[in-house]
């Protein structure tokens, strides 16, 4: 499992989706997301044969990556960095976009990231892991709750996001 070749294969299979998830989790902080991906795969490499006991390597990688982000976020320095970097994280306008469209798009991206950032960390993780297709049991293990409460957490997080992201627009317009 943990030979270089196996880890390389797992990296090839999971790195892009894991990076995307962590990028969303961090509000678009590419440096932290990339660091967390590397951290997760290095932990996998270090785990050696112990990883053979891991029932679900994909969920394990997401949990390690999530925990890394959580730990880093809890340091004062990382929080300061996040504050200063956050405003610059939105991707630049695509060349083909008209200026107004680029501004609009950048504003929408900023709004999505800001709304996610406002959520309690557990709610954010639950929503984003669901978006990655994890089962409620896997999500529950990642955030330390019961499987039965995951649906409630998802619904509550959506409630909190609904206003900021206009999630009911299709119904209300």
């Amino acid at each position, binding site marked *: 499992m943990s*030979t*270089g*070749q196996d*880890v*390389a294969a797992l990296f*090839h*299979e999971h*790195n*892009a*989706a894991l*990076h*995307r998830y962590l*990028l*969303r989790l961090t509000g*678009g902080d*590419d440096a932290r*997301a*990339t660091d967390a*991906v*590397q951290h997760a*795969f*290095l932990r996998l*490499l270090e785990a050696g044969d112990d990883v053979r006991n891991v029932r679900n390597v994909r969920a394990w990688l997401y949990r390690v990556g999530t925990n890394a982000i959580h730990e880093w976020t809890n340091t004062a320095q990382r929080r300061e960095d996040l504050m200063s970097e956050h405003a610059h994280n939105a*991707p*630049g306008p*695509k060349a083909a976009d008209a200026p107004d469209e680029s501004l609009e*798009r950048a504003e*929408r*991206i900023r709004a*999505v*990231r800001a709304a*996610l950032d406002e959520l309690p960390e557990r709610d954010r993780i639950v*929503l*984003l892991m*669901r*978006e990655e*297709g994890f*089962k*409620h049991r896997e999500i529950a293990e990642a955030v330390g709750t019961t*499987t*039965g*409460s*995951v*649906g*409630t*957490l*998802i*619904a*509550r997080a*959506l409630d909190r*996001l*609904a206003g900021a*992201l*206009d*999630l*009911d627009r*299709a*119904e*209300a*317009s």
Partner: protein
Amino acid sequence: MSPVAGAGDLSARGGGPGGADHLDDGALVRVLDGEASKAELEHARSCVPCRARLGRLEVRLHAFGRAVAEADAGGAEPSYDAAFLDAIGAPGPTDQPAMVSAAAKESRSTTARRPRRTVSLRWAAALAILTVAASAPPVRAFVARAATAMWSMVTGGSVESPEPVAEPIVSTVETAVVGSLLTVVVPQGMTVRLVPTEASAAAARLSGGGPQADLLVRTDGFQVTGAIGGATLEVSVPPAIERVRVEAAGRMPVVVDAPRDSALTVERENGGTG
């Protein structure tokens, strides 16, 4: 939370019409994700208010998925340290962009048209079974008559002679019936056509222009949520489809069980009928 009588472990909340209990939001999420109990599924299948809430929740989840996917688009791809790639035995920096790009493309495209986990498949399969169980001919005939009357009240016209849609088709989507779930945004004034196809597939076509609405196509029927004011909605029911649901502008949903081979047309002002 108090259980529905005879509903086993159903998570529900009270306060519904006539004092009936209903699924709580967490249970609705479980239904959508294919993780609900049999009792929750049965309740979701038979309770109109819960199905309406289910539709709204589904729209929210899709809107959230679209929002985060849009925020991903155009973002920089990860650039891993050469030492890290060496350590895990992955291709070096020279090969990295192509490798990551391919993986990212695969991953993103999977998200963009994700068949929403096997969830919907399981839910749809369960609902399909329940639909068959609940569709004994006398029941279906009664529902069809009621639906026809209801539809006539809404449209003020006959369900037998739909007007042809003149606008050019601008978008066509088609999906296998079993387990498919599809959302398309229908702009202001747009016409929605659901066209019968072979039994194993359902097709939806959009034309014209109009208010925002979401069209959901799935095993147990079609669901249009959002304002359809000023729009013409024409529904031709594929053989495999048992139900058509229309919800307009957050008002009272109109639920129609459409008899097979029928075609339904409705024209309504925005919010004019609740």
